[in-house]
């Protein structure tokens, strides 16, 4: 993490990473609008500035509502494999998502990427529903068909960012997304190895390290140790 405390600037960074930043930037313009309009319109300037302000508020509120729907969908998609009997133990989605977030933090990904990688990890295995019987949970997240199903399901929802490409079967061309994909794969396989395969954390880490990127494996080792 270094000497610089990312926590202190996280709210600002999160704000700038929002899709609706034009609304946030434009809101102060309402005050300027009033200043210019008052000499020309008198009391009508209140109406003009007020209406524009309300429009901005409504836009912000609706955008936030859409984001909330997206977050809720990701949570629900994460639950489905659990209630569908496709994950060995309840709470897999929470565990994997939390661990992915820690690994992403260790790798100093951007705040938006941290959010996306946590969401992708949470709902990344919903595609296992496409199997008649999920044969080998111990295989973890290396099955292309399950990945394709997962990407297809998530892709049905708009505004899910890069999640479909992260959980899909093809390696993303975007280097940032490629790292995020690697995090999701590794964390998912690690969780399956521990909770489905019965391995202890050290053995599980050793097993998944064979296929994962070295920097992500190192971050996973640190993040898991932090616990």
């Amino acid at each position, binding site marked *: 993490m270094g000497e610089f405390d990312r926590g202190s600037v996280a709210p600002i960074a999160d704000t700038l990473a929002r*899709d*609706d*930043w*034009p*609304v946030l*930037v*434009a*809101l102060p*313009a*309402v005050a*300027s*609008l009033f200043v*210019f*309009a008052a000499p*020309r*319109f008198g009391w*009508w300037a209140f*109406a*003009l500035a007020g*209406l*524009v302000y309300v*429009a*901005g508020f*409504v*836009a912000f*509120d*609706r*955008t936030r*509502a*859409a*984001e*909330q*729907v*997206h977050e*809720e*969908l990701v*949570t*629900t*998609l994460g*639950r*489905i494999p659990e*209630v*569908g*009997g496709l994950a060995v133990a309840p709470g897999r989605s929470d565990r994997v998502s939390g661990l992915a977030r820690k690994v992403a933090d260790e790798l100093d990904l951007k705040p938006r990427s941290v959010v996306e990688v946590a969401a992708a990890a949470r709902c990344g295995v*919903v*595609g296992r*529903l*496409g199997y*008649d*019987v999920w044969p080998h949970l111990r295989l973890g997240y290396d099955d292309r068909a399950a990945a*394709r*199903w997962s990407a*297809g*399901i*998530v*892709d*049905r*929802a*708009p*505004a899910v960012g890069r999640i479909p490409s992260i959980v899909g079967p093809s390696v993303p061309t975007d280097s940032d997304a490629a790292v995020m994909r690697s995090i999701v794969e590794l964390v998912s396989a690690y969780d399956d190895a521990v909770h489905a395969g019965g391995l202890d954390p050290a053995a599980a880490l050793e097993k998944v390290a064979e296929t994962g990127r070295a920097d992500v494996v190192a971050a996973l080792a640190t993040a898991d140790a932090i616990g």
Partner: protein
Amino acid sequence: MSPHSQSSSATTQTPLLGLVALVIVLIVMATASWPAPTWAWVALAAAYVAIEVRWEEPAGAGWLVAPAVASALDPGGAMAALLVAIAVVAVIDNRRQHEAARLAVGRVVAHVPLVAVFLVGGGAVAGEPAWSVAVGGAVVGAVALGLALLVRRLIGQPRREEGYVRPLAESVVLGVIAALLGALAGSLGWLVAPIVTAGLIIVAAADASRRQAVSAREGAVDSLVLALELKDLYTRGHSERVAVYAGWLGAEMGLRGERLRKLRYAALLHDIGKLAVPRHLIRKPGSLTAEEFCRVQQHAVVVPEMLQPMTFLSDVVPAISEHHIHFDGSGYGRARYRGARTSLEARILAVADAFDAMTTHRPYRKALSVDYALTELERCAGSQFDPDVVTAFAPCIDGRSLPMPSDGFESDADARRVAERSVSHG
């Protein structure tokens, strides 16, 4: 049913309609003497309606009330600027999959010509009293909405939302804002251009966010439906057909607006609990053992837990949980209040679900005829089904083209192939 299919259809037709609007404007410009207020106004109104009907993103249709208002103020100068605006929006419209920052820049660029419209057109009313400018904007906003609704009806395109009060109020407010901004720009010139731009972006964002919120909900439901279909490929399309029947029934029984929309969500997700049922039980050809039947019944009970994170579906969950509870109180499921009658939505779902189940292939039998299904519904009215709902159902399907039932899959491989196609093409 997919919102994506609707939007791709709109995208396909957008260039054609936009082109027609542009041709109209160009013809008017070439034939009418310059400036030509009447013809220019008609042409601009046509362009506005075409865009309002087909162009959904990125700037949102609402901001186009602005040039409509400005054109009423000074159509000649406004027209040229609007042409540029249309071209810019057309370019942006073809790049829907871009990142947020590029979208935001696109919005700003798209509004530059609009600000020019205001600067050119606003001069005509620069000295007018504010109240008359506002009233003029309100009238133009209302007329613009009326034109858009008229054209939608003429071309058979469904409306974006039910009711008239809310769309009218929004359009009137947009018109007032646009007119006042135009008058302000006309009075103060380029000095206020950035402020006017910001104001227009805010208004555009408000308009676009309405569709964003709706499509987020539709997309979430769509995702869950696909997840269900992956679990149970053999009943693929069942959810969509039940949603169609329930929609017809709901409208017939007086449901409107948000309640009808939620009934559709409930119909699409009425079997979502099957995600918690083993696949071999869902598709078992023979009769179920008592233990197996108990397990299958769980699909109606686990729904509240499964959908608990989705707050916008909280009103929908009771109908899903109750739709297997019979009219006489028998059946199974989770009722909100013991002994109370289930909701109208649940009773509608029960009929729609049963009708589709009877008229399509099932793992254990071939599809039954529509006449047989209607007779069976009537036979069970008063016990399993609400008699009022059953009575309303026959007129609903009479003369209508029923949704095509899915073909019976010969094998898992067939079913998988169809579902793979669905995932690949959205």
